[in-house]
């Protein structure tokens, strides 16, 4: 076994350890430890990505060298490595982009706990990406929930406490359904590893027995994870939680945490049931319908917001809709679109939230639309980043968001007629709506105003994070072909 094959396991376990060490360090020390460890995980994930692309295959890593039915496994392929690389990179940039907010917003003496939670969150995200075992997925889903709720709560105010409570309650309902799904599936198949379950499920499905329980199980998984990733009718907890938290937390929650659950759902669709069963059970029709509704309703709600961060939060609801529309497309191309959207939104929305944090700095800490007038002139870096992010969200060519819309449209054209018509219409409507709420903000932040704080001296970490985000967004748009190919190949390997 080559050294690089151990890296996924190391990233998961040592991120947990890093969290423990952060808990006993002081704020600054924890920050240094956490950032250096995250940089290392980024390098390791990149090495794994290069390795999997070079060997053009995936491999199974057995924990403790126990064989299939007994041991726990993680599975590594190009798609997983790509997600892990992107997520660790975005995590570093989100932290840098809101670093001074973290130190200002956390209660004194508790800053190190922020980095503890970030490490735990990163560990659980890696585990959700790589795991090959359903019960492990459940345990890390819960770790993810606790860590992300704590990230909201560390900025102490009445609103964040309420938002955290509502977030936690909805998340727990979701994990309850997810766990019940796992338990019933275990009762039917007697397996927990994804490949073994897949084999048994195929056998059971062929006999025609247990067809109702299978539908119910797929329903539990879909609803449970949809609640946690804020699909449209279950999104009520999201705007409060994402808009009241500190800038880095909003960036991380919107960009990464929501996506972790979707990745688990994609893995379940592909590796536990197989696309054939998912299509014939018709559960994906609901996901498609809710995804399309989310695209429209999220944007309409975003239009009505007077508060910049709430607007961005509702825009996340719409963007999650794109992912689910792709998932419900009944085709390989739709799945590719969903995965591309996960990546595109993960690099775009954190940039927007960090830019919003920058605007708040130069507008006396306010985030309402009227307060941030002219903020783009006072803080040009944030202004530029927000413009790039907004153009990506609207879907201008050569930005990340355009790639999503293109792949989603390609997926729709390959699908049946009704889906094609609905998707293309929804894409057009949502693009117009996106433009309707992002363009006025761009005009607003660059218009002249008398008030507001003076321009701040640009901070090195903030400027670095924003410029890397912008560069990543544009290169995502330019090298879209290579990216989509890697995603497609990763999904093909998923099915095996």
């Amino acid at each position, binding site marked *: 076994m080559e050294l690089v094959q151990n890296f996924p396991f190391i990233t998961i376990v040592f991120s947990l350890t890093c969290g423990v060490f952060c808990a006993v360090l002081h704020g600054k020390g924890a920050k240094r430890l956490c950032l250096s460890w995250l940089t290392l995980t980024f390098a390791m994930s990149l090495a794994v990505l290069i390795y999997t692309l070079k060997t053009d295959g995936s491999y199974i890593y057995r924990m403790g060298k126990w064989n299939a039915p007994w041991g726990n496994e993680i599975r590594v392929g190009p798609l997983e490595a790509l997600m892990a690389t992107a997520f660790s990179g975005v995590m570093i940039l989100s932290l840098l982009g809101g670093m001074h907010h973290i130190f200002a917003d956390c209660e004194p003496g508790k800053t190190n706990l922020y980095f503890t939670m970030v490490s735990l969150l990163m560990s659980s995200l890696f585990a959700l990406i790589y795991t090959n075992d359903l019960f492990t997925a459940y345990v890390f889903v*819960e770790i993810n929930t606790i860590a992300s709720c704590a990230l909201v709560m560390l900025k102490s105010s*009445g609103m964040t406490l309420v938002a955290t409570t509502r977030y936690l*309650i909805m998340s727990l309902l979701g994990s*309850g359904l997810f766990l*019940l799904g796992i338990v019933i599936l275990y009762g039917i198949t*007697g397996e927990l590893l994804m490949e073994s379950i897949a084999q048994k499920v195929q056998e059971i499905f062929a006999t025609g027995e247990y067809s109702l329980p299978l539908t119910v199980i797929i329903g539990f998984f879909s609803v449970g994870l949809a609640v946690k990733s804020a699909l449209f009718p279950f999104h009520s907890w999201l705007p409060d939680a994402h808009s009241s938290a500190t800038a880095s937390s909003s960036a991380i929650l919107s960009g990464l945490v929501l996506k972790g659950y979707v990745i688990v759902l994609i893995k379940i669709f592909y590796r536990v049931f197989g696309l054939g069963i998912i299509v014939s059970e018709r559960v994906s029709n609901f996901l498609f319908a809710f995804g399309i509704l989310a695209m429209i309703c999220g944007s309409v709600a975003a239009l009505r917001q007077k508060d910049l961060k709430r607007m961005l939060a509702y825009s996340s609801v719409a963007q999650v809709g794109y992912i689910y529309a792709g998932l419900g497309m009944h085709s390989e191309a739709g799945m590719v679109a969903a995965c591309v959207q996960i990546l595109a939104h993960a690099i775009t929305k954190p940039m927007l939230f960090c830019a919003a944090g920058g605007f708040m700095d130069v507008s006396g800490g306010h985030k309402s639309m009227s307060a941030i007038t002219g903020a783009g002139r006072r803080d040009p870096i944030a202004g530029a980043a927000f413009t790039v992010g907004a153009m990506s969200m609207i879907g201008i060519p050569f930005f990340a968001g355009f790639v999503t819309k293109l792949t989603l449209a390609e997926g729709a054209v390959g699908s049946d007629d009704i889906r094609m018509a609905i998707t293309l219409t929804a894409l057009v409507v949502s693009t117009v709506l996106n433009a309707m709420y992002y363009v006025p903000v761009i005009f607003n932040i660059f218009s002249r105003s008398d008030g507001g704080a003076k321009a701040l001296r640009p901070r090195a970490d903030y400027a670095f994070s924003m410029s890397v985000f912008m560069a990543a967004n544009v290169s995502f748009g330019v090298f879209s072909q290579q990216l989509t190919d890697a995603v497609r190949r990763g999904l093909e390997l998923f099915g095996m």
Partner: protein
Amino acid sequence: MPELLKNLFDNYYEAAAVVIFGIGFTTLLMHRNLLKKIIGLNFMDSGIYLFLAAKGYIAGRLAPIVVDGDIDPSRYVNPIPTGLVLTGIVVSVSVTAFLLALTCRLYDKFHTLDIDEITYLARKERD
């Protein structure tokens, strides 16, 4: 219909487990009192553990502890569901602790346990 009833009575552990899960789920979702929500969460998880434990037990077999070198698997029940229940209990304890701590802070700040009232007060404080 009689067949459905017969199935329900044959698998009364599972049926009870699902009923308990339903009670817990609706309490967690609908109830306005935070403490009752937490009780509902624990009901919901207990329902799942009862389901797992019932599925894992095979009548007439022994607990999977090997004595006298008898390793014939047909004499023992499957130990995995029990292990899953233990793991699940650990998860549910930590989540309950987190939610209780959160409730304490909310009560200190707003002097009520009603989630709707707390939300109303927090919105008023923000505006």
